[in-house]
């Protein structure tokens, strides 16, 4: 496939048998993964290898084995690529004596931009993260949420094609989290690619359906969370049905071979089926006919990231 990296044709990150170890400790173990353009969530518990992967993607670490290309080029010792990449690291570290504006401007200048333009770009970035009012305050006086936002500002100030955000919501209050998640989604809609890491499942789920699951240095799964769920066909699909006559429904369900088990939870029945398509089709017919009473709610507790992750980790 040809085309500019970051377009629909080319992956933004391509890792090929990528491994990284620190002495005896394996940080990343034979990872081969392709990240498409758009927003990708990197998900895993603490110590899974997320930060190691992020550092390899941002060229801070050299692969012990294998290769990694970002936007079509190898990243290690390729500083030119950073004109197109913006990185928001996890650590809470700044030049505390500088103001937010001074700091972001100084970093933008390192992109080869002259002073006036750098200051303008810094202001725009601070405005985007709603920090313009505090731009002339010293970073040492910022709150945790403000510090996180000024970090994001320096990552996006130079208008990068790819944003890499390592735990961007850490330390933020709920309102700030919502705003940041909205911002990330906007960036994705505007044509930027975003790789965002977190160990909090519902945060990633609210940003994107495209995920990369990692645990103990290995990739568990990559792709759309719904597709991943569908592919786990050995694991029965749970369906939660709240209805007026749950026992009647249960008698009806037990007559079919695809229903593996069911249990009652208050006014609902939770069914485990090995053939979700066939089951949903029958359920739709039952709900339309109303012969077994009204069906008020149908959800699948499995069709979310938590269930997918927990299942994959256990297996």
């Amino acid at each position: 496939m040809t085309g500019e990296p970051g377009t629909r044709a080319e992956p933004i990150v391509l890792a090929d048998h990528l491994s990284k170890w620190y002495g005896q400790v394996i940080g990343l173990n034979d990872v081969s993964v392709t990240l498409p353009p758009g927003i990708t969530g990197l998900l895993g518990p603490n110590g899974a290898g997320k930060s190691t992967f992020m550092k390899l993607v941002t060229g801070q670490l050299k692969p012990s084995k294998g290769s990694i290309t970002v936007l079509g080029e190898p990243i290690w010792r390729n500083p030119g690529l950073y004109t197109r990449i913006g990185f928001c690291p996890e650590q809470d570290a700044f030049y505390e004596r500088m103001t937010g504006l001074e700091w972001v401007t100084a970093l933008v200048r390192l992109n080869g931009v002259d002073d006036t333009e750098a200051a303008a770009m810094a202001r725009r970035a601070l405005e985007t993260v709603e920090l313009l009012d505090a731009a002339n305050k010293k970073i040492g006086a910022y709150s945790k949420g403000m510090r996180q936002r000024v970090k994001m500002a320096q990552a996006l100030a130079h208008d990068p094609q790819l944003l890499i955000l390592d735990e961007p919501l850490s330390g933020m209050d709920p309102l700030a989290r919502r705003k940041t998640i909205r911002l990330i989604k906007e960036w994705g809609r505007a044509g930027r690619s975003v790789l965002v890491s977190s160990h909090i499942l519902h945060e990633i789920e609210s940003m994107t359906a495209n995920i990369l699951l990692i645990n103990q240095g290995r990739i568990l799964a990559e792709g759309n969370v719904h597709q991943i769920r569908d592919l786990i066909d050995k694991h029965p699909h749970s369906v939660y049905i709240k209805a007026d006559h749950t026992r009647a429904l249960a008698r009806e369900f037990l007559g079919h071979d695809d229903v593996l088990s069911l249990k009652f939870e208050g006014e609902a029945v939770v069914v485990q089926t090995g053939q979700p398509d066939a089951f949903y089709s029958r359920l739709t017919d039952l709900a339309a006919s109303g012969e077994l009473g009204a069906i008020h709610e149908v959800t699948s507790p499995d069709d979310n990231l938590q269930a997918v992750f927990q299942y994959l980790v256990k297996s």
Partner: protein
Amino acid sequence: MSAPATRRATPSVFTSALRIFDLSLGQMLWSRRSVFLGLLLGGPVLLAIALRVVSALYASGFRINGAQAAGPSVFGMMIWLLYIRFIVPVLGVFYGTSLIADEVDDKTITYLFTRPIPRRAVLFGKFLAYLVCTVLLVLPSVMFVFFLIVPIGGSGIGEAFPALLADLAMLAIGLAAYGAVFALVGTRLKRPLIIGLVFAFGWEPAVLLFPGYLKRMTVAYYLQALVRHEMPQDSAVSMLLQVFREVPSIPVSLASLAVIIGVTLWLAGQAVEQREFVLDQ
């Protein structure tokens, strides 16, 4: 939200280094550490004040190496004992070994290494900032000492002024040389401070005593050749040094120091380019 920008040309090593210099100079100059080191450099000034007061009270003046000493001799002795043998190596060890290490400890190195600038530009920019910072700390101290001490015994400041300029240039070269050597130590070795102290206060004084080529593996051998003042005989070691001292010519010393600065900085730059910096979690 604007569309992604087209690629900008990345700045050259020189431009990048200058921008890092801009960023680092203020940090270095106004940090608490530099303020404290600046106060330390006030020690020679206080000493000069005390000596000036004493010389005013006691008309007999001072004696150096058994002979009546005029102000310029006392100034030269202070340049040797305080600046050449102590202040310049200490500043070189302290700042040189921490050029990159401070950024790593503070975890701010990530911001510099994820910019479209060569990593060695970060080192060069910080080295320049170190040089300017230390010269700005040492210069006033030396000048104060000069103006306080040289007039002792009736010597004229005007006659000795060209020598002051030569001393300032020599100290700046010394700061550059030690800074470059310890920048290399800082980027290549663990525990660079201890190794730096061993080099500056163990290896160099010891090796200078021995005849042969070993002394050419020091900065002090070439730097001390640029000092116009007579070496003081304050200890048995100094007297021994005086006996065995071989002094290269000034052009040879300057060329050798330039080579030392160039080679060590280049090697340090290579180390920074190739090394991975793993931050403490």
